[in-house]
């Protein structure tokens, strides 16, 4: 596809997490795609609903409307492309501006299997995360390294916030009798183009 080279691998991360497989070539995400998986936190079964948003610039206004009510986000860049890292600030501002201020954001440096082509050092990712109060991890959607951890740690963080009462779940939940909260998964890319959101719905 025309812009596929822009991909930092959001859709691949999602596929690895939900289906445990890797597909190197993905169709361009149009608007948003969805994924879901059951996980267990504190002995409770929780359904993660993940929104994988389009990274291409023309969808940006559309994907902004998906931020609303999200409880968490993965902000993803590609460690082999410096430009995707440089655009993180823009994406972060955009996400914070259009979402819940308590939203948990995890910074992900994807494609860690491509060590030989690395352009962004791990320390730089860590420093950025520290500076902006984010959790940080490097993942590989190809080898599945840290993918599980990235999603589950974010979910745990949100779960803790809910336990603390930071999220007013009743207000966030617009459907289903289960406790529902959203996880916004945002990914940086060229022109700051990559983001995907996901929604978590949890049951007690």
């Amino acid at each position, binding site marked *: *596809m*025309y812009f596929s080279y822009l991909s930092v691998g959001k859709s691949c991360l999602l596929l690895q997490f939900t289906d445990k497989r890797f597909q190197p070539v993905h169709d*361009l995400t*149009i*608007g*948003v795609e*969805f994924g*879901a998986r059951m996980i267990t936190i504190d002995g409770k079964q929780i359904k993660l*609903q993940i*929104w994988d948003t389009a990274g*291409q*610039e*023309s*969808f*940006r*206004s*559309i994907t902004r*409307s*998906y931020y609303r009510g999200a409880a968490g986000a993965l902000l993803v860049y590609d460690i082999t492309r410096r430009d995707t890292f440089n655009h993180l600030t823009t994406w972060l501002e955009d996400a914070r501006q259009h979402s819940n201020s308590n939203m948990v954001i995890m910074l992900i440096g994807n494609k860690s299997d491509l060590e030989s082509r690395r352009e962004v050092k791990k320390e730089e990712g860590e420093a950025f995360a520290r500076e902006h109060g984010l959790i940080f991890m490097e993942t590989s959607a190809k080898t599945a390294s840290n993918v599980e951890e990235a999603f589950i740690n974010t979910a745990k963080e949100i779960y803790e916030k809910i336990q603390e009462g930071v999220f007013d779940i009743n207000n966030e939940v*617009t*459907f*289903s009798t289960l406790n529902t909260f959203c996880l916004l998964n945002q990914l940086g890319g060229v*022109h700051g183009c990559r983001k995907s959101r996901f*929604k978590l*719905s949890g049951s007690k």
Partner: protein
Amino acid sequence: LHTHKKSVVNKMQQKYWKTKQTLIKVTGKKEDEHVVASDADLDAKLELFHSIQRTCMELLKAIELYQKRICFLSQEENELGKFLRSQGSQDKTRAGKMMQATGKALCFSSQQRLALRTPLSRLYQEVETFRYRAISDTWLTVNRMEQYRTEYRGALLWMKDVSQELDPDLYKQMEKFRKVQAQVRHAKLNFDKLKTDVCQKVDLLGASRCNLLSHVLTTYQTTLLHFWEKTSHTMAAIHESFKGYQPYEFTMLKFHQVSKNNHSALCISLVMPAPAYEAVLLAAIRSSTGEWENSEKIS
């Protein structure tokens, strides 16, 4: 029947959003900045295309005007030459000889100048053909692309609309979203294809115009150089043969009334080498004594 009804509704909705986008465009309402920004490369190419279109038109007009001016200039030059010759024949001094020789040279130059018209009309024809064929062909592609662009942006508006309250757990909503998503995907595919086509065509258009110009202008340049060589050679020969003649120097010339010939004498003299210049002025003064005021001759 049900699916037929559905597709009719779908078409209606599609038309509605396309019309909405057309209205936004026509009324000049602010469009989604991100959507506009994502077409930046395309819009830059369109800018280039319009510049090619405009400058080709301007070039044609300029060539036409240039052709006319060359004819006028040649006519005037010829008349001036004839005038100098006739004045020269009445003057039995050395100045008379000078005038006659210069007059001859000017007549020669006026004929040679017309040679420029051939490469120029060739250039005109080539640019005209380029405009009719290449530019209008690209223009058609641009128009088709704009239609797909409107469709795509309309579909994006639609998608934005259905995204406002999207819940993947609600089947009804998802069904609608999938329908719009398919529409966006389809429109995007069409648009992206035409987008690539337009970008490639405009690049090709620019390159082929450069190619055309460098080809045709070479002939023009050669002809022009040839013309300059010939005339300057003639002028140089006159200059050589009049060496040692009494030089004239005019410090100030002021005139009230100028006849047609005098006028051209002044105009032409500015582009002529020194001997011709002197001869022209001399002739002008002699032929119209009384019309000139305060003309000083310093030997």
